[in-house]
């Protein structure tokens, strides 16, 4: 193969595909990126055998062909090149790189050894706004634990229903649900569980893009595709396995009513919890006491070594007096995912779940279980 490409363009592509490489010792070829030149496109692909990433860039082609090269090395090297044209040429498992005053040789491997990234036959797809989609995912992903004990909750659950997409994450102590509305109705309802790692990669690669994102399904795979802004050719594809399993009936755990609810100013609430957390010791317990008559929530932490902290906030309150303890981290995590300036905090007694949700926005809800102290 022989092509000419702009450094900036090449570097962009490498940045997108290189992150999932370089962690595999048993199959060294997985540390590589596969460069394929076909017609006017250079295709870069990498995989870790759970997911694969493809990137395409427009290039001036002299000769078609392919080669596989260590991805990290190629990426670091390209980063140091001046912003000029680069000529890439592959001969006998070696990549020759020419850029302005430099001439470099990188040793590669037989491209035939590189894993084949699965394709999805089904041509039907759902189109979403890439930015909003990734934004929604980032509001639920932090909740998921990376433990593999229960595979079915180790990923993000996506439910496509009529003109809605529901995204759910949980670690069995708390749960976040985000609802996105679509412009077009989906023909077929479906639900799937996507590995956490894939979602992180998706947010990293596509989080800032404003283009439309296409989603393709097959029974065991999912593919996200971003089309080039200039021409109708895919620019980035992320293909991943799905998690096999049934997601729990999470709807049942979202409480419909609260014993007590209070509306608080989010920034101040978060600030007070962070202050309180300094005194929660290593058990992370923060105690809330709501007195509806005074319209007031008291936040209290105590540690035998460090001391104690007490603060309060005023807010519009409904319900009965209540006293419940939580892990402070779970509360501040939930608050950080909420964008509105005011937040509804709904509590239940007897170890029932509590809820945090933004005021005036029904699309997000965060459910959290309290701690039981002796």
């Amino acid at each position, binding site marked *: 193969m022989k092509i000419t490409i702009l450094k900036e363009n090449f570097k962009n592509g490498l940045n997108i595909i290189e992150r999932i490489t370089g962690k595999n010792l048993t199959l060294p070829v997985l540390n590589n990126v596969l460069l394929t030149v076909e017609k006017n496109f250079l295709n870069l692909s990498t995989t870790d055998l759970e997911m694969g990433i493809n990137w395409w860039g427009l290039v001036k082609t002299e000769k078609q062909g392919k080669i596989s090269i260590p991805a990290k090395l190629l990426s670091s090297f390209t980063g140091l090149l001046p912003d000029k044209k680069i000529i890439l040429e592959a001969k006998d498992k070696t990549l020759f790189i020419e850029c302005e005053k430099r001439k470099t040789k990188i040793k590669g491997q037989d491209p035939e050894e590189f894993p084949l990234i699965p394709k999805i036959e089904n041509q039907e797809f759902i189109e979403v706004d890439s930015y909003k989609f990734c934004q929604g995912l980032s509001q639920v992903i932090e909740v998921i634990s990376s433990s593999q004990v229960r595979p079915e909750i180790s990923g993000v659950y996506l439910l496509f229903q009529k003109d809605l997409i529901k995204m759910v994450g949980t670690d069995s102590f708390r749960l976040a649900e985000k609802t996105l509305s679509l412009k077009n109705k989906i023909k077929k309802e479906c639900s799937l569980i996507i590995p956490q790692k894939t979602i992180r990669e998706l947010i990293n690669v596509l989080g800032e893009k404003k283009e439309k994102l296409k989603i393709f399904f097959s029974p065991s795979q999912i593919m996200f595709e971003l089309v080039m802004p200039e021409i109708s050719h895919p620019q980035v594809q992320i293909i991943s396995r799905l998690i096999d399993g049934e997601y*729990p009936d999470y709807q049942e*755990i979202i409480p419909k009513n609260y014993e007590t609810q209070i509306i608080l100013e989010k920034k101040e609430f978060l600030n007070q919890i962070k202050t309180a957390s300094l005194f929660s010791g290593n058990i992370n317990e923060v105690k809330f006491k709501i007195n509806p008559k005074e319209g007031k929530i008291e936040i209290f932490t105590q540690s035998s070594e460090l001391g104690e902290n007490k603060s309060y906030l005023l807010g519009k309150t409904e319900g009965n007096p209540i006293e419940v303890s939580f892990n402070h981290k779970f509360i501040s995590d939930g608050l950080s995912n909420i964008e509105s300036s005011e937040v509804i905090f709904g509590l239940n007694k007897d170890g029932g779940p509590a809820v945090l949700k933004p005021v005036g926005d029904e699309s997000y809800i965060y459910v959290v279980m309290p701690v039981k102290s002796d």
Partner: protein
Amino acid sequence: MTKEELWQAVLADIQFHISRANFTTWLANTEIISKQDKCILVSVPNSFSKEWLENKYNKLILKALYNINNDIKEVKYEVKPCALKTLDHLASTDLPKPKLEQLNFQEFKINKKTNLNPRYTFDNFVIGSFNELAQAAAWAVSKKPGLVYNPLFIYGNVGLGKTHLLQAIGNKIIEKSASKNVLYIPAEKFTSEVVSSIRNGTIESLKAKFRQTDVLILDDAQFLAGKEKTQEEFFHTFNSLYEKNKQIILSSDRSPKAIPALEERLRSRFEGGMIADISAPDYETRLAILKTKGQEKKIDLSNETLEYIASNVQKNIREMEGALNSLAAYQKLNNEQLDAKIARKLLKNLISSPPKIVSPKIIIQMVAEFFDLKERDLITPSRKKEIVRPRQIAMYLLRNELKSSFPFIGRKFSGKDHTTAIYACTKIKKEIENSEKFTDEINLIKQRIYSQSC
């Protein structure tokens, strides 16, 4: 040569042709699923392996197979995820519990596939004379599902442990062989699934789902009453499972005979296996249950208090558990040992408001309603047969439930003589002794009366 041996031979051959790394990466967790004529179907753990084997190693594999068996002309691959087995045993070996207990979503513990809650086991089921038969039958069924008592029908009043027993059977079977397809479903949910699948036109997939179970557990079967289409669906599912010797387990709050509006063909099938009833526990058993529950929940109550609960909450184990919980909460909150006096005060509204506030008016009203008559008809001195009998029943109930005097009863029914009342009561009493069906009918009326009055 078995499938396993064949695949082992193939792998043994291939390992000499490819690198070690490739061998372990692409051929790990593969196996032959089926062999049909000239075609071999191989399962692979993921799509990457599938692509690779299809496109790169197909020739190699085919050649190795051909060398062993000349008939084989084709190999196909199918993705079967396997590395995702739930590591349940890991979950149970938690770290030592810190002082603080982070609560989690209990609903997640319910097995999504079987709907079973692991909380219910035979180990924490207290046996007494009142439930001995049901427990023994359940135990036998869990040992040999489908072979001993099919169907097993358990009935008894609310809060006596039917659901516990049913789920324990399911859990036991799963524990013995995880591959068994067990499904627990309350009748009400069965109905709503039937309804929604009719609406969505997915009735076929629903049928398939129920018919491939090895053990089907239907709780609260009395709710099938009056739902014809659901009954029909259940009837066919029942037959198809029964023919294949798959276990069916049912529960209800009354015997199959006493479930109104249940189609005859279903009723007779329910009665075809083993019917076991759970009655109310006696005092000693109640005390034993309280002690077991107390231990389970680490509640430390004095014997005196437990005895007080046992002697006062008589008919419902669930209520007993509730009483136990509220006392435990009080004790924890106030950090003091409870004595029977405080217990009495705390449980006052639980115990002293048993639904005994039945008035003659309610009895007459309910009897009339039950027989689809007007209250006035019962009271008028008509001698029509369809009225006389309900009137006698009402008289009997007034006597037995309210201990009303015979003259009082006579006056209630537009001044009949007290001997008429005596005659009615003896007659009904005799009939109750003689006819099982009639007893159920009376019990049904009583149930209505008491559920109305509280």
